[in-house]
């Protein structure tokens, strides 16, 4: 064994200095190197990358083909269901519940985050307690709790302890959409407040010091200096929250609210043969909303990126125009 190794290594000895790789049997002389220096350097090639790409494309095409060839997709039914009035009604509820909860949770989230960061120990502990409770409880549990709130507190009200009270019947306050929005918002405020808090903490302390030393009033220190900079990191995380909220709104079905998912579920049991097209319809609408939210997010992020980079990145539309422009021989658009 050791003999073999030794004999191999001795074989190699004369080759050292020239045999660095299979393409370089002899070292090029300096005249040759000078000639090579004038040529562009060939970047490293990635054959494995191309093979994997090809495999993925084949699998994707195979699946795409079944969309057309598999009759079970029933695209004609998808076409009729997608604009069905009942579906559209469910859609309206999903959008309303998500939209209102998103606005409420942003405003509420900012307030809870501010309370959490405040120097007032009562406010800060209460805010911590709130976040702890509503991050711990599953949303569906909160919703069903609210649904049965009438059993727990037949009437709700506020007043001075042992003094005058203002009261209303629980059932008349928490009806339908209100219940859904309150449930979704309670949970979302808790999540959003953490997103906002992280955003506020990410702003450099020097920013507030500069604002203070200029005598800028406190409220404006927050709205003009701190919040706009915090929003840069808040927006992507918050949009993620909204998308989660959009999907969480499908839980409203469990408290007898017919949102998009609820409607599809109901229609599915009425028309069992149409279950696949109905699911496709629901998927399409959820995809549409998420895409719209994504586009809005892109432009909001761009807005809050002002001053963050040395140059504002181009919008996709501008990039497209520029790409088309450079292909033109005249290069009219730059």
């Amino acid at each position, binding site marked *: 064994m050791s003999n073999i190794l030794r004999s191999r290594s001795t074989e190699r000895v004369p080759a050292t200095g020239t045999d660095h790789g299979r393409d370089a049997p002899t070292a090029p002389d300096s005249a040759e190197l000078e000639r090579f220096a004038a040529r562009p350097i060939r970047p490293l090639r990635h054959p494995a990358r191309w093979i994997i790409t090809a495999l993925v494309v084949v699998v994707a095409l195979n699946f795409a083909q079944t969309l057309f060839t598999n009759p079970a997709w029933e695209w004609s039914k998808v076409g009729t269901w997608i604009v069905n009035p009942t579906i559209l009604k469910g859609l309206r509820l999903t959008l309303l519940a998500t939209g209102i909860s998103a606005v409420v949770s942003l405003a509420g989230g900012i307030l809870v985050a501010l309370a959490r960061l405040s120097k007032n120990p009562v406010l800060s502990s209460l805010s911590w307690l709130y976040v702890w409770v509503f991050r711990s409880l599953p949303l569906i549990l909160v919703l069903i709790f609210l649904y049965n709130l009438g059993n727990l507190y037949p009437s709700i009200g506020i007043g001075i302890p042992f003094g005058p009270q203002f009261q209303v019947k629980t059932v008349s306050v928490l009806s339908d959409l209100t219940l859904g929005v309150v449930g979704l918002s309670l949970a979302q405020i808790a999540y959003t407040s953490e997103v906002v808090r992280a955003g506020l903490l990410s702003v450099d302390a*020097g920013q507030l010091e500069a604002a203070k030393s200029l*005598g800028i009033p406190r409220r404006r220190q927050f709205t*003009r200096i701190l919040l706009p*900079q915090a929003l840069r990191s808040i927006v992507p995380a918050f949009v993620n929250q909204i998308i989660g909220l959009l999907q969480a709104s499908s839980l409203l079905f469990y408290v007898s609210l017919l949102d998009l998912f609820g409607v599809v579920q109901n229609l599915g049991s009425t028309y069992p043969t149409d279950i696949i097209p109905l699911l496709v319809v629901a998927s399409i609408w959820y995809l549409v909303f998420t895409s719209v939210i994504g586009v809005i997010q892109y432009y909001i992020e761009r807005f809050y990126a002002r001053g963050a980079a040395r140059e504002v990145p181009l919008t996709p539309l501008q990039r497209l125009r520029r790409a088309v422009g450079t292909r033109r021989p005249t290069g009219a658009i730059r």
Partner: protein
Amino acid sequence: MSTALEIRGATKAFGDKPVLRGIDLDVARGSVTVILGPSGSGKSTLLRAINHLEKLDQGFVRVAGELIGVKVKGDRFVELHERDILTQRSRIGFVFQAFNLFPHLTILENVTEAPISLARDVAESREKALILLDRVGLADKAAAYPRQLSGGQQQRVAIARALVLEPELILFDEPTSALDPELVREVLDVISGLAGTGTTLVVVTHEIGFAREVADRVVFMDEGVIVEQGTPAEIFDTPSHPRTREFLSRVL
């Protein structure tokens, strides 16, 4: 000459670590005072205590005769309401080592932010801001954002921002320490240009050359106390205290 700034018995500890151990200092109106000292000597804390970014444990600061951050109640000082402290700060300029420009606002907006937020006339504030930007040589950058500027340019904007409220006193906290060596000069030139214009300047810096040229008085601090003070000639040529001599031998 009247007193622009008066500090008496300024004492401050971070936890059990004393940073200021009884500072007395008088600064004449319109003069340039340079504070020197090794790092950790309390210079920055003293400067930040002047506009109440740091609260003193004991002692007081008066700017143009007015107590800063506190008022007398009964037989002691009590802290002022935040709103009143902000009003006092608007009369004291502060320039930070790290510039602390607002990165999401343009250069012009950085300068006009304070006057506009203090309900001054918008058009007038813009006009004044442009004049100041011109004075620091950056009028053409009004629409740019801070990150598009070099460090030296950013610090010049920060000086314009501090000047826009026409403060009677401007505090500089190591204004050139975050700059590349070739950018230090342009910032020091702007500061030198302010000397003798009636505004009182207090500068914490390590730039000995600047101190020698521009300062009326040099204050040497170490371990939370003022070790000695005097004219630049007195401090640099004939320092009386061994700690001053030791410090100067290391930095000169």
